């Protein structure tokens, strides 16, 4: 079971292949322990992450979504994360308007060498989601 709570919650992570996925690998190689709630989807670039993926996940059962890419200026594809930043910021501001706590969605930049930062991010974000609790109540689940 998860270290942060009695029951795991559903957290989806979209990680760019070149930086953040590598950062998560680095954390693994360094054996930096993390909560187990997160499920990782590898994408080539944070610019590939259509905000709709985040919406889709949140509407369909995810309790939290994390997107991580290369640091600005450091994108493997030079500009991908710049587009991601605008789109994801737009989404982050829109979510509370829909009644979804924007704390359920976090986007950040983690490089392939930042294993520790990855560990910290996963730990903190998982804690944050557990603090908020499940997004979907049982009633809706029957729908």
């Amino acid at each position, binding site marked *: 079971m998860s270290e942060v709570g009695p029951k795991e919650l559903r957290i989806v992570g979209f990680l760019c292949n070149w930086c953040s996925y590598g950062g998560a690998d680095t954390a693994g190689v360094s054996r930096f322990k993390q909560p187990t709630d997160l499920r990782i989807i590898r994408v080539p670039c944070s610019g590939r992450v259509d*905000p*709709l993926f985040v*919406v*889709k996940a949140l*509407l*369909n059962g995810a309790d939290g979504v994390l997107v991580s890419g290369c640091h*600005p*200026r450091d994108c493997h594809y030079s*500009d991908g994360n*710049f*587009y991601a*930043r*605008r*789109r994801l*910021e*737009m*989404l*982050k*501001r*829109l979510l*509370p*308007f*829909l*009644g*979804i*706590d924007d704390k359920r969605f*976090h*986007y*950040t*930049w983690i490089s392939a060498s930042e294993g520790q930062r990855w560990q910290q*991010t996963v730990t*903190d*974000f998982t804690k*944050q989601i557990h603090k908020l609790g499940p997004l979907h109540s049982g009633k*809706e689940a029957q*729908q």
Partner: protein
Amino acid sequence: MSLDKLKQIITDVMKEVDVVIGYKQGFDPLHATPCFITKPEQVDQVIWNPLCVQNLASYLTSLKKKVGVIVKGCDSRTIVQFMQEGLIDRSKVVVIGIPCTGVVSVRKVLEKVKHEPIEEVKFSDDGMVIVKTPSGETKMALSEVAPDKCETCQYPTPVLYDHLAGEPITSTKDPQSVFKDIEEFDKKSLEEKKAYWEKEFDRCIRCYACRNACPMCVCQDSCIAESREPHWVSQKSNLTEKMMFHMIHALHLAGRCVECGECERACPMGIPVNKLKRKINSDMKVLFGYEPGVKPEDKPPMFTFSVEEKNIEEHKL
């Protein structure tokens, strides 16, 4: 503005275009409908009054011909946005602008007359609407029955035109309060907001009137709401799928919605569909100082970036 002057302009424009899009009387006295004028004798059908609600610029992207189009201030932003996105050939469009003092919301009028059959609609010079029904005449101020977009209208005169039928009008509405309703709504609790949208979207019948009426929805037949490749939404008619569709609509209009309100007007189920887009627009303004459909040389913010984003701060956990 005189109707004769408008007709004169149309007659002149007809000489250089294949079709002029204007308004004529619709199926009852409360409805106007678009008309496509290709012959001089059709010019006489043209009307202009607060019932001319449709955004005629919506037709521009699908027409290959040279077109003259009548636009109100709000509609003109559509053309500017088309130009920003390179969706029209400006040389093939002749814009006939009309300074507009506001239109009516048919829905609000019907509410006022308790949905009785409409026998006659008149507009007085002092901004009153007189509606005759079997049970008598009802007088109402135009401002009372105007759609919400008119209440904060910043562009009564088209932002761009080749011909202007009438004298330019300047807005008297406070530019600071354009998004006041959005800000007010956003102050509600998450639970209230969630409940609100669940109730509203639950009515959606996925008829896609909002999408098809939207001038900026360029995909139309290729919309991902109906496709299996990619398969974003299923055919199930539950709240989740309805919400997903509306999020697709809203996010695809991020930084592009010119707030003509056609989506909301088109919805047969009275869902406030434009609200989400206006929320994004309010953020576009804050984040990038951008307002869609105002300056032809602008770049829509979602298709560009700054290396240093002045107004986006990194989020901490």
